């Protein structure tokens, strides 16, 4: 693990380009810096004024504790899903600024309140006006407090800025989120070490600045912190590296527990949630206990399925077949999935069986991966097929948006490049055919995006799917993958009945009910099962 980390940090490829360390570091600094500037501009004058006037002490103190109670993650998601802001760095900058305002406000307020009342009285006695007292007496005295408040907030903002990557933003958090999505432990740890390192450096630099900002008479000599920093960095490193090392020693367990409820994984988009609910409720109706868990990507779910942490997952036939093929036979293995559902299903069973995973009968309903552009863009240049777009891209390299795992998936970036010969200027990691990818396309932040053909909401957002004329995408029929230890004949019968009842048209209508009409996936699934006599 340590060797792999060293290799990652010394690989020149990780030091250049849009996903290189310098770019991500710069994005991280710009986001944190802008957030701090906004927070300081708002919070410092306001806090000082409130402190000087002595008004509303309760308000300031309550603001401090309410500020702590509001999760930054929630603020980030709210801003990202609010049209005027949208996904990306802006949402992160504003969320971080809101995160930093309460503590800075409180420290500015405290600083002014801490100014010695005798000194203020003396100044008043000398005939200073309120404004002069504030500027020449209270402010210099309060700088000590303020500097410490700003320093603490900045370090926290730098550490928290990683969350930006969850809503399609950049920065060092990108490595953590992408590493998690692709289950690349080295990438996650590298991202964490870079972020922690940046926060430590920020703290040291600001600590130096804080000493300079403090009135000489008030400076306190602190004992050397070097030992503590060294100890901390070692602990950070151990904490990040040890779990994966321990986990690899533990080895894999033997399938899902037969006693507990069946844990059904749903990927984080509407269709997968409906499918998981269809399975869950059909099983529950026959007295089998289930539990649905929403997870991010196949790279996360598949090992959990092997280990038995996940018992059942709605999968896409062609995509999961190639995923396992590359995992078992190496990344350069020849493709075994094809447009033939029956043949692909047999290949999948051969790959999954030895991993303790059983494949049930695929549904006639399918949801291909597809590439979409805006309707306006397609009309302007007369694009009908992905080949049309590819020809255009030779003169005008395109910006591709898709899930973080896209650069390593044969049907995504590598397929576009090798099968279609498309020229891509860069890749923007967003989500798996979800709102981030679609919004980014609609707003012109990306040129082409990976979506799902059964998405009920493409038309509404002015997007159009281009025809996959070179058949990059394989037969992606929905198919239940289940841990072999719980794949009883009863479960098989129930799930095969659900699969048989579903068609692509029905799937599109279920998706529309969830994504556009905003019905609860559980409610939509129940109505379907009742209508088809499955429960």
């Amino acid at each position: 693990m340590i060797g792999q980390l060293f290799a990652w940090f010394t690989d020149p490829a990780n030091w250049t380009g849009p996903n290189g360390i310098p770019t991500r570091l710069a994005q991280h600094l710009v986001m944190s810096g802008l957030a701090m500037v906004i927070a300081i501009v708002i919070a410092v004058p306001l806090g000082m004024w409130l402190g000087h006037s002595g008004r509303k002490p309760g308000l300031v103190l309550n603001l401090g504790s309410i500020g702590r109670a509001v999760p930054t993650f929630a603020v980030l998601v709210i801003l990202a899903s609010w049209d005027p802001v949208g996904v990306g760095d802006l949402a992160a900058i504003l969320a971080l600024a809101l995160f930093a305002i309460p503590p800075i406000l409180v420290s500015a307020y405290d600083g002014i309140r801490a100014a010695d009342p005798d000194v203020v009285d003396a100044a008043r006695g000398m005939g200073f006006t309120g404004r002069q007292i504030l500027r020449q007496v209270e402010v210099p005295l309060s700088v000590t407090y303020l500097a410490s408040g700003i320093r603490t907030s900045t370090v926290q903002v730098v550490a928290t800025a990683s969350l930006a990557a969850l809503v399609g933003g950049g920065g060092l958090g990108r490595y953590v989120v992408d590493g998690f999505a692709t289950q690349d432990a080295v990438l996650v740890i590298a991202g964490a070490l870079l972020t922690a390192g940046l926060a430590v450096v920020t703290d040291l630099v600001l600590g130096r600045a804080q000493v300079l900002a403090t009135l000489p008479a008030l400076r306190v000599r602190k004992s050397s912190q070097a030992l503590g920093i060294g100890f901390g960095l070692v602990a950070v490193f151990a904490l990040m590296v040890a779990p994966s090392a321990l986990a690899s020693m533990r080895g894999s367990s033997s399938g899902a527990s037969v006693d507990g409820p069946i844990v059904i994984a749903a990927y984080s988009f509407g269709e997968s949630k409906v499918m998981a609910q269809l399975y869950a409720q059909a099983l529950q109706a026959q007295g089998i206990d289930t539990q649905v868990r929403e997870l991010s990507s196949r790279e996360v779910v598949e090992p959990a399925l092997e280990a038995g942490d996940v018992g059942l997952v709605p999968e896409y036939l062609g995509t999961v077949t190639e995923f396992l093929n590359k995992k078992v036979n190496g990344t350069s293995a020849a493709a075994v999935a094809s447009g033939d559902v029956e043949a692909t299903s047999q290949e999948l069973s051969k790959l999954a069986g030895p991993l303790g995973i059983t494949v049930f009968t695929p549904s006639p309903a399918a949801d291909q991966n597809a590439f979409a552009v805006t309707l306006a863009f397609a009309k302007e240049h007369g694009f009908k097929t992905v080949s049309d777009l590819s020809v255009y891209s030779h003169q005008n390299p395109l910006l591709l948006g898709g899930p973080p795992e896209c650069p390593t998936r044969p049907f995504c970036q590598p397929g576009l490049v090798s099968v279609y010969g498309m020229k891509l200027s860069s890749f923007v990691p967003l989500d798996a055919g979800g709102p981030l990818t679609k919004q980014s396309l609609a707003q012109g932040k990306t040129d082409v995006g990976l979506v799902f053909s059964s998405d009920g909401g493409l038309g509404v957002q002015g997007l159009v799917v281009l025809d996959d004329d070179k058949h990059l995408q394989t037969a992606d029929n929905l198919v239940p993958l289940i841990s072999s230890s719980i794949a009883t004949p009863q479960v098989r019968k129930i799930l095969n009945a659900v699969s048989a009842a579903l068609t692509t048209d029905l799937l599109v209508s279920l998706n529309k009910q969830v994504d556009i009409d905003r019905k609860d996936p559980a409610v939509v699934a129940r109505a379907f099962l009742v209508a088809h006599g499955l429960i």
Partner: protein
Amino acid sequence: MESANPWLSWSYVQDNSAALVSAGIEHLWITVASMALGIVMAVPLTLLARRHAPWAPSLLSGSGILYTIPSLALISALWPLFGLTNLTVIVALALYALLILLRGALLGLDEVPADVVDAARGMGMSDREIMVSVEFPLALPTILSGLRVATVSTVGLVTVGALVGHGGFGTLILGGLNENFYHAKIFTATIACVALALILDFALRALERGLTPWAKVAV
């Protein structure tokens, strides 16, 4: 046509009350378990730092550095070990809580006047008796306010657990983002999360006042 997508929707709350309640229970359980684990780890470390006083500043600045690991990264790093269980989130949050608790405990114990400890020793009390019946009660206000700050920030951090499917209200928030920006779902879960934090904050303040009636409750 795109349907209306309001931030506030009472019908969302009514239709999804079961999901909200179960998210709330998970959120509260993860918070309580993380705090309990944090306290269990904080006690021996505090005693260790007291016994070896020269280590205390290093322990504090070192633990400050641990706090700079992004929650996202810590949860991702613990994932291989604990997998799809809520332990992944609980262990991560317990470590963050530990730092705040440790700081509060050491600060509180440092503030105990040396005269009082000397007097206790003069009365023939053992080290253990001094810790239990003199230093601990005098440090209690600071320890309890550390506990309160740690609890409130843990409630917020639980949301990040959504990454591994155990985020309480955070799972609804991330789910709402992925369901084509379902505003009512995102906003309702956020309000519920803030409310939970404020309720716990209030309850712990009341506890502080009850246990340490002589102290002025700090913010």
